[in-house]
């Protein structure tokens, strides 16, 4: 396992897309500042802007793109056969890829927080910490669900283009389908849209959210992640290269 991890991390730190995607999210965050100051005429702070990092950097979409680029690279370049033929099991390869890409997702998130904090501080000043750290932490946990979704999709499809396209479309489509279900079925005690990652992410970012709702969001996130990973692994376990 150690060799697989060394291989995956060596690859990650030499993967241009890792740096480009991080840079894109950072640029979007910087470009977001004048939108708040000039257009919305809002007065924020470094901490407040950092806490809004996910909504202002298109983070989830770019995470989907990066995960597909990183994971599908080995499929596209037919490199996986070199790894499997050398006696590395599909399970180890799956876990190695999951850990390294999750690490990358975490690094990108951390980098964006720092960029948003510095950018916001330069323009508005540091401000109070308030609930910012709690929000960032909880939203970071929900990102594990998104990452698992994009990761599993990439492992199943094994091709960069379709993985990016379906990843981006699917996240929007799922929300749309759940909304339609709410409209058609009109459930009285719950809403379908409340049980998807987008809602969980909003709940994690809401400082006034009830503890029970927050708990459901976090448990739901981990359940989704577990299901995505299990499906991804099941598809990958017997994949012939």
């Amino acid at each position: 396992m150690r060799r697989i991890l060394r291989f995956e991390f060596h690859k990650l730190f030499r993967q241009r897309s890792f740096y480009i995607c991080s840079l894109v999210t950072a640029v979007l965050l910087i470009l977001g500042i004048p939108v708040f100051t000039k257009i919305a005429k809002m007065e924020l702070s470094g901490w407040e802007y950092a806490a809004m990092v996910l909504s202002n950097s298109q983070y989830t979409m770019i995470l989907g793109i990066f995960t597909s680029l990183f994971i599908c690279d080995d499929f596209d370049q037919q490199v996986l056969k070199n790894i499997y033929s050398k006696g590395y099991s599909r399970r180890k390869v799956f876990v190695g890829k999951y850990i390294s890409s999750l690490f990358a997702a975490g690094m990108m998130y951390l980098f964006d927080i720092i960029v948003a904090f510095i950018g916001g501080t330069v323009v508005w000043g540091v401000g109070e910490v308030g609930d910012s750290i709690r929000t960032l932490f909880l939203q970071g946990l929900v990102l594990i669900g998104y990452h698992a979704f994009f990761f599993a999709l990439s492992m199943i499809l094994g091709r960069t283009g379709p993985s990016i396209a379906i990843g981006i479309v699917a996240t929007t489509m799922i929300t749309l389908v759940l909304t339609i279900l709410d409209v058609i079925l009109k459930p009285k005690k719950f809403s379908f849209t409340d049980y998807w990652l987008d809602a969980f992410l909003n709940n994690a970012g809401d400082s006034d959210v009830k503890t029970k709702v927050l708990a459901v969001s976090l448990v739901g996130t981990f359940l989704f992640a577990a299901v995505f990973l299990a499906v991804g692994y099941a598809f990958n376990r017997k994949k012939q290269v």
Partner: protein
Amino acid sequence: MEYVIRTKELTKMYGHKAAVDKVSMNIEKGDIYGFIGKNGAGKTTTMKMLLGMIFPNGGTMELFGKPANNASRRRIGSLIEAPGIYKGCTAYENLKRFSLLYGGDDKSIKELLELVNLSNTGKKKAGAFSLGMKQRLGIAIAMLGDPEVLVLDEPVNGLDPAAIKGVRDTLLNLNQEKGTTVLISSHLLGELAKISTRYGIINSGVLVEEVSAQELESRCRQTLVIKCRDTAAAETALREKLGIAEIETAGDTITLLSGLERAEEINTTLVSAGAGVFDLHTTTADMEDYFIERIGR
């Protein structure tokens, strides 16, 4: 006998069609095993099963005397179909990456680059390499970590004659100096003939024959064919006057497996013995003909 690769009734089905049909293959330590068959005969599929890239539907596989497992596959280097390389990386970076999985240090990477003649490619990305260069890089990757067995599927595809000779010399060198066992498939029979010590002939998924290079040579050697009216008199003359023992007679045809260099003397002797010779010529059973006879056109 120490076998490094053995399969027993190895089978791979795609739908109802057997791509590999009950193949029982035996490769001894130190062999250079030439795996011969037409396109789609099942060579690559067999190799992929040995390497764990695809899963068999039946039969057993043994590597190094034990049931095939991931640990035994660590001792094998391989190149199957097109080489799996990172096209956005240099030759050095490709080897560096795989060395993290396969083993091998910076020194061995540089030696391998020298060996496959890629040491002067500098910052050129593998994606910009010619077909032959990519193939050579794939061979270098297979050789990383000093594997005990090399499984090479059409490794000289796309290589120029000089590069083919380079690969051949490298394989012979590895085999003779380090005792590396090689399983190699190629459609270039002449190339295989120059290095193989043993052959496996596969046709439509079935292993038709396993034959050693020596056996094959004896089957393909030159013969002297004599046609005459009195074969009994000819046989007597050949045995008693010329001392030739290896004689095969069928109808009016006598085939001699030895004494070809004495054709003129043989002819004179048979004429004076009154054998009534009306045809005398040499034939060579070509290796290509031998294989084609077994696998069909």
